[in-house]
């Protein structure tokens, strides 16, 4: 039987993906252009007995989200630029205390209040470095409405699997545009649930270093009692001043990522085999890049498209690989050059050309094509 196809908005697909993934907790605070996610879930979550709350601000929202997660729920919050800045301290807490949760950031013009209804991709570096201190980051960057659905599902899976906050970042264009989406049926997409402890309650250690990722119990649900803190802590979750354990703790939250790159990274590539001109693009900009890449190939130009769906961790190895054949990387972004810096770092000696727009307008295919032609 054909799948149900619905014509829906990016933000709607996000809510749909969250529900598919088993999300049963949402806490948020309205902000353009992400508000629809909260609105839809405010309608849908009660229907399935899930919990939904509008908090007094974004700080409270991320805090409640983390609390909901520790209460055993799959928890989500959604916001945009200014809200992302406010959530930073809480995000660091989730990373440090290793609490799964998913954060959607629909990007609008910044900095500050900026251009609330204009599209942008200028929060990409904030995703990685926003909160103080070294912390692990996973950030996914879908380009289409169906992809927002599937990447939101993947975000929940990664969050639950790696016990950490996982971001989905997309720009206002993808968030507000509409496309037909085939609604997956149960079983169509993989769903990862949080590993639960199986040991005796008295043996339970929420940060047991015998595990790569220790199972996380829920407060009051499984008979395990444990302590959680944002201070550096030992296996048992209690604060420690032992410099060895501090070091281990700081490194192990990063190692979760580094040791599982194959599982976490996801890229789409088009015509990369012989590509001399590599377009590195994400979000709605990747759609323009794709258009331009097609046209370029039609003109016989050896252009390829590298489209990261996992932006953080950065696809360093793949870029280093691509750099071996490429003579130029073109990085179109609706910002003043953010991911292009990472490309530059990982493609030493290769020219990296940014196409940057910060005027509230999308980067159109013609602009990219023109740039490609300069390098052909």
């Amino acid at each position, binding site marked *: 039987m054909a799948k149900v196809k619905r014509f829906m908005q990016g933000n709607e697909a996000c809510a749909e993906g969250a529900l598919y993934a088993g999300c049963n*907790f949402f*806490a948020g605070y309205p902000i353009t252009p992400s508000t629809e996610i909260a609105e839809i879930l405010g*309608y849908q979550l*009660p*229907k399935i*007995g899930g*919990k939904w*709350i509008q*908090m*007094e*601000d974004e*700080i*409270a*929202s991320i*805090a*409640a*989200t*983390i*609390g*909901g*997660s*520790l*209460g*055993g*729920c799959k*928890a989500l919050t959604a916001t945009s630029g200014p809200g992302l800045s406010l959530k930073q*301290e*809480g995000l660091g*807490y989730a990373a440090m205390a290793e609490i799964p949760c998913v954060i959607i950031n629909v990007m609008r013009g910044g900095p500050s209040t900026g251009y609330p209804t204009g599209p942008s991709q200028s929060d990409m570096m904030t995703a990685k470095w926003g909160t103080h201190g070294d912390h692990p980051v996973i950030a996914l960057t879908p380009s289409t409405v169906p992809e927002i659905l599937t990447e939101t599902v993947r975000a929940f899976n990664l969050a639950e699997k790696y016990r950490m906050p996982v971001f989905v970042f997309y720009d206002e264009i993808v968030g507000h545009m509409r496309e037909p989406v085939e609604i997956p049926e149960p079983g169509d997409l993989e769903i990862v649930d949080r590993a639960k402890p199986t040991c005796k309650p008295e043996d339970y250690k929420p940060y047991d270093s015998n595990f790569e990722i220790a199972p996380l119990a*829920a*407060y*009051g*649900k499984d*008979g395990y*009692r*444990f*302590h*959680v*803190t*944002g*201070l550096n802590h030992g296996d048992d979750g*209690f*604060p420690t001043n032992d410099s060895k354990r501090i070091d281990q703790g700081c490194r192990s939250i990063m190692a979760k990522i580094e040791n599982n790159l194959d599982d976490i990274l996801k890229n789409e590539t088009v015509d990369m085999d012989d590509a001399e001109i590599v377009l590195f693009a994400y979000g709605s900009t990747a759609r323009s890049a794709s258009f331009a890449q097609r046209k370029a190939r039609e003109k016989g130009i050896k252009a390829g498209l590298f489209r990261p769906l996992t932006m953080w961790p950065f696809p360093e190895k793949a870029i280093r690989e691509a750099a071996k054949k490429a003579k130029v990387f073109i990085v179109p972004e609706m910002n003043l050059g953010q991911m292009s810096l990472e490309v530059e770092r990982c493609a030493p000696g290769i020219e990296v050309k940014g196409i940057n727009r910060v005027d509230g307008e999308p980067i159109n295919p013609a602009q990219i094509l023109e740039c490609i032609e300069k390098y052909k």
Partner: protein
Amino acid sequence: MTAEAAKKQKLSVPFDYSKYLRGGKLPHIWCPGCGHGIILKALLRAIDKIGLTNDEICMVSGIGCSSRTPGYVDFNTMHTLHGRALSYATGIKMANPDLNLIVTTGDGDALAIGGNHFIHTCRRNIDMTILVYSNSIYGMTGGQFSPTTPEGSKTSTSPYGAMEPNFDCCELAKASGATFVARATSYHVAELERTIKAAIEHKGTSVVEILDQCPIYFGRQNKYKSASHMMEMIEKDGTVSVKQVDKLPPEKLEGKLLRGILHQVEGEEYCDKYAKIIEKAQD
């Protein structure tokens, strides 16, 4: 005679705190004479009187000396960010309404940086007990004035005497919508225990402001001779029980804070209401 043996003989025995304490965590980090330990003990006795099991309780705190409380008790415990305990607790409670949420927080944590979450939690009337360890100072960071530091006091950030008016924590809680509001002190220990018990038993948001002492920073800078001196002056002589208010002449009430349950009303609890929303949505 062990406590066990004493119990068998039906003699009065001291309270056995150990069933609620995590092994190996004592002595606690609080300074000599700090009131926070007195509050913790009263809380444990209150929990025992109610008969809650360790599994039924979730204790959440922010950051500060007071916020170190959860580390010592064998409940579901969470030490969060400065000022944000109530928002974390709200998430936990929503996810798991069966848990008894107890938030231990300081005057700085609850009323300075955490003020917004404090008033909104009270407004929602979500079922949790908020214990504000009110020592008129930021203890953890070395003694800066807080929103409850009495005017004129010396602190490390008010070398010329504190000039800011104070919050009345209880008035604020009440105006925000809390359905149970009380004040207690670490001096009046039996009353403290009773008040905490009543607060936990109340369904809805309960706030107990507990006046206690920071002899190290507030005490030293303001020439108190000892912890007992502070308890005597601030907690004993500085307060009056609501029960005595009517019996005392006005001059005896001047400048005194009231102790006891100051406000208690019924109000539908947040999670109960949300359960109705779920019913409605599923109709």
